[in-house]
């Protein structure tokens, strides 16, 4: 079951990502990104991280991408114009990407014992919810990073307000 889900939605995510690059119109690209986000959410879910999946759908597909689409609609952006692209990117692009991919997978695979594993939840196999575990971790051992992140977001919101007020 999990293999089937992974195959279908992994392929869907890759197809959406490719479509994102190949589409000429910004709104089609934005919608492809939505497909990628949703497929990732299903993958998270199939791994047992159901809270992460729901957050992914609500935050990324539901809020951030809607704003993207909103801005594209407001600007009424037309089809993009293709440039020739830089020659460096054309030559180094694919080998560079492949090299980084290989390096990352090599590091993760060789160091996986030292990285350790984490138990995401028992929702795939049976009952149980990992929401309480996540919140417990967030509010005990990871409290400082969590609060610092919220302050960071608050600062960003205030900055946006200040920038917007200048034009009033």
């Amino acid at each position: 079951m999990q293999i089937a889900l992974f195959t279908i939605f992994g392929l869907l995510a890759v197809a959406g990502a490719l479509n994102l690059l190949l589409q000429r119109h910004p709104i089609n690209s934005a919608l492809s990104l939505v497909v990628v986000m949703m497929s990732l959410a299903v993958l998270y879910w199939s791994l047992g991280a159901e809270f992460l999946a729901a957050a992914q759908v609500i935050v990324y597909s539901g809020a951030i991408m809607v704003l993207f689409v909103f801005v594209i609609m407001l600007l009424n952006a037309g089809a993009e114009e293709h440039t020739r692209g830089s020659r460096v990117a054309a030559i180094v692009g694919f080998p560079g990407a492949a090299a980084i991919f290989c390096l990352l997978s090599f590091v993760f695979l060789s160091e996986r014992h030292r990285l350790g594993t984490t138990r995401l939840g028992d929702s795939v196999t049976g009952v149980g919810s990992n929401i309480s575990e996540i919140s417990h971790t967030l509010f005990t051992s990871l409290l400082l990073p969590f609060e610092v992140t919220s302050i960071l977001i608050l600062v960003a919101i205030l900055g946006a307000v200040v920038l917007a007020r200048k034009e009033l």
Partner: protein
Amino acid sequence: MTQSHPFLLFLALSIVKIAVVLVITLMAVAYTVLLERKVLGRLQNRWGPSRTGPFGLLQPLADGIKLFLKEDMMPLAVERPLFIAAPIIALACALVSISMVPFGKHTLVPGTGVDIFQVADLNIGLLVILGITSIGVYGIALSGWSSNNKYSLFGSLRATAQMISYELALGLSLVGVVLRAQSLSLRDIVASQSAHGLWSWNVLGGCQIIAFFIYLMAAYAETNRSPFDLPEAESELVAGYHTEYSSMKFAMFFMAEYANMITVACVATLLFFGGAGSPFGHLFDHFGNGWFLAAALPVFWFVAKVFAFLLLYIWVRGTLPRFRYDQLMGFGWKFLLPVAMLNILATALALAYHG
């Protein structure tokens, strides 16, 4: 039915449940439309539809046939794939979220672990409903943009901005309930209110009445219903985001709106009014000893509560005038959101003090 294939059995039963729930929801949508027309008519001192069948009861059927047989116009300047996809997204999202709703008591099909009265019991059911609602915004946003019509675009811009803004107040108003139930599963939330009937419902005993009113207002805005129906304000925008749609595509938007109304009413029932629980608690439990009554009574209470919410929707539509757009945004951001946050704070403090 073989016990050796629990997965196949589960699959078959799930498909049957989905089909039944789908048919019932679509029938409910059709008759909600009729109910609205009848009740709105009475509120305005006229009869409403009364010629098709007894009391106009066959009117939804006639409407359906009319919409099916109408010519499906496809304007030339539209963005074709998105123009077709938009109503499908809207209707699909509206129908999927009903699958999380538990309609009755936890009743298993004999010999299996499959619940009769709920399509899917997820431990994050509430979040799934919120997520699907937020995906439903795409249907409206894309329909307006792909129509290539200024009124459609304005309607969909208004709708999108309104839905994103009120989603926050909607989500925050539910946090108090989740804090009290300590779970995001809709079954657990209902179970947390089942102790003493009316008195242990979140809206009364749970002291979530402020949260309930925030939810109610945000939900009206989420479903683009009066008094927040600016996206389809016919005096300004022709018909808003579905101006260019005709025939079945228009019907899909129409059905999506009413299906969303029903979902919102179901969620309000589950979260604030004890779901399928009786208002008398366990007072009259010894009367209903038969298995049929024990299974049917909760469903009756659930349907009655949802029906009351739908009547409230129609009553509000018949009574209140439309907001102005800046009033709508100011109300959502400057009033509902802070009050919802204060409610969370108060609930959390009260729980910490008692627990």
